[in-house]
């Protein structure tokens, strides 16, 4: 997965996209790569996770080999116009930037092309070995990666059309670009992940690089422990324990039983994910990451990135 040059990290809201993106970034640095992390919305989750100050459109090296930036359509437009159209930026003319924004909004794919174009541009420039994008949630990603193609169909001529060709060449090369779909072991998140993988395969030529199941609860009991656990729940056994120890262990049984049920539920949803994926074109990588929900936020990224390093080595 990290051998690619451009990775979009996406998934349903709340599954931990930003955490996974930041952790993948750290894991890639650990592999000796120069990494650019890009946050797609200005929510600031990435800077918090990386424990750094607010990010801007201009990438900033926050630790050796790890740079980060935040995407901004206005800045992307400015840069695009000056680099590719060799025209001074329209914002110099009062009011025009707003009108431009309005029209750019209207045409399908224009905004997305600016954004995706910036990412592809960073790939092409080669200052980084890999660009990892903390992308928008599942609803938007297909439109985003397909934008150059959409736009080309919509605007058959013109310089923008020309520009979309090299972007497509990067995006549609599965050696270079991939989408990483993050999910948790919850029904809706799994459904969305499956729908997204299918949409990527049917509506775009961009490859799904991997599925990452985040927050997988660990196994509670081994198979033979399961048998003992169910026996410990029998009335006769329970009363023997009370007689001998002077205390019931009911609450402990309930607590481990709850953890066990949560684990079984997760396993069930992961099985649904696997069988759903098997019906689609085979995805090379399915990674399961442990549940660190109750870890302090500052340790989250370092724990997950070591986990990812181990998984990916």
């Amino acid at each position, binding site marked *: 997965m990290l051998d690619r040059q451009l990775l979009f990290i996406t998934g349903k*809201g*709340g*599954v*931990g996209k930003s955490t996974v993106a930041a952790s993948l970034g750290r894991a890639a640095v650990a592999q000796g790569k120069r990494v650019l992390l890009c946050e797609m919305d200005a*929510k600031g989750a990435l800077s918090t996770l990386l424990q750094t100050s607010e990010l801007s459109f201009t990438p900033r090296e926050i630790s050796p080999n790890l740079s980060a930036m935040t995407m901004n359509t206005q800045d992307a437009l400015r840069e695009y*116009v000056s680099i590719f159209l060799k025209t001074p930026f329209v914002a110099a*003319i009062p009011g*025009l930037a707003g*009108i*431009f924004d*309005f*029209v750019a*909004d*209207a*045409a*399908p794919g*224009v905004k997305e092309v600016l954004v995706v174009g910036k990412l592809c541009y960073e790939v092409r420039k080669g200052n980084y070995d890999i660009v990892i994008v903390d992308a*928008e*949630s599942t*609803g938007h990603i297909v439109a985003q990666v397909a934008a150059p193609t959409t736009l080309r169909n919509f*605007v058959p*001529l*013109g*310089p*923008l059309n020309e520009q979309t060709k090299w972007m497509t060449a990067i995006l549609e090369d599965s050696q270079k670009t991939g989408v990483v779909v993050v999910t*948790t072991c919850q*029904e*809706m998140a799994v*459904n969305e992940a499956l729908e997204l993988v299918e949409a990527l395969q049917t509506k775009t030529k961009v490859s799904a690089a991997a599925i990452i199941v985040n927050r997988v609860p660990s196994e*509670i*009991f081994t198979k*033979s*422990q399961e048998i*003992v*656990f169910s*026996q410990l729940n*029998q009335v*006769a*056994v329970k009363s*023997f324990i009370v007689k*001998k*120890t*002077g*205390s*019931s*262990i009911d*609450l*402990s*049984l*309930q*607590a*481990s*039983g*709850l*953890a066990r*049920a*949560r684990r079984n*539920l997760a396993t069930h949803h992961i099985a649904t994910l696997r069988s759903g994926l098997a019906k689609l074109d085979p995805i090379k990588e399915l990674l399961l990451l442990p549940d660190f*929900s*109750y870890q302090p936020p500052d340790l989250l990224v370092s724990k997950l990135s070591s986990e990812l390093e181990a998984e990916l080595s």
Partner: protein
Amino acid sequence: MTTVAELIQRDGLIIVCGSGGVGKTSISAALGVLAATQTNKRVLVLTVDPAKRLANALGLREFGNVEVQITSDLFKTSKTKLRGSLSAGMIDTKASWDDLISRHAPDEATRNSVLQNSLYKNLTERFVHSHDYIAIERLYQAHSSGAYDLIVVDTPPSRNALTILDAPKRMQDFFSSRLLKLLTANSQWQLLALAAKPFYEIADRLLGKGLLRDVAEFFTLFRTMEAGFVERAKKVEALLHDSKTSFVIVTTLEDAPLSEAEFLSAALKERKFSTHLAIANRVIPKELQGGALTEQAHVLNDARQNTEFISELADVLVNTDASSGTSSDIDEANLSKLLTQTLETIQNYALATTQISEMQSTLLDRVAGFADHFAVAPMLESDIADINGLVTLGENLNIV
């Protein structure tokens, strides 16, 4: 701020918001079920994209804009019975937009041109955040139909729950924007060419000739519906600010969703919407909080190291299990070892549960920080798959 019991006694709207994945839809459905079983109200639960099993639990089979009344059949196996009536509906964005256009279009020709315009879907999506606007619009429709006393709506999975509340205002702003007027003015092209010649040239270079014209054409059509849309948006906005509209913020006791909930609460206050209740979901059940569980963990710790106890317990297991013949297959030395390990695992999870519960109680202080009143829903062993699950969840919410 109110309790859940007070909340379901009121007529009006309950808008349930919160970060993704915290269980908004289940909570909304449970509130609806609670209201319909505790009061004699006519209740509607509106949801955007329910999980399949939850939809089934509510008796929803197919996707669409039709509201389905839940028959008392669904409550057959439940101890609790319906006192009022309960309906459920989904919000189908595309169908709702088409409805809206049909309603506001001045004539058949305009209606057809808009619906068939290739930019229609894209433009409505971009400019007015159609998902959000439609959710609110549907809410208004259901409310003004007079068919329901209480409507619980589950907000769409939008990155920021506020876009839904700002949607009516945004719709009004859109129609009054200078840009729209400029684009759709009769003498548009001269005007644009005159005032924005450099822009026009660049836009053509960038986008290709003719695109701008298509866009303008669409908006010219769209503007014929301005009066209808604006009037409606104003009414919808007034409804949101009505004192009968309650906001409920759902969160789990984890850092990220909680930060979002805090942000949401502040933003609601800023917009002068009042948050009536916060709900902390997936909380460690009450009986597992506190000292009793920790004490049991200590008992387990001693017990599993007591070889005499272990060997006696192993005998008990073999004897009680004679009929099913499971652990009797394992020889005694191994059974003792297995027993020790299992007890250790149980001890570990008892302690882990205690730790999680302590962390949750610290985070619950943060909920108390933004909400004067909150309800707590327990972590469940499985997903909600039937009406009984919703009844139980509702009853849990109702415990003060």
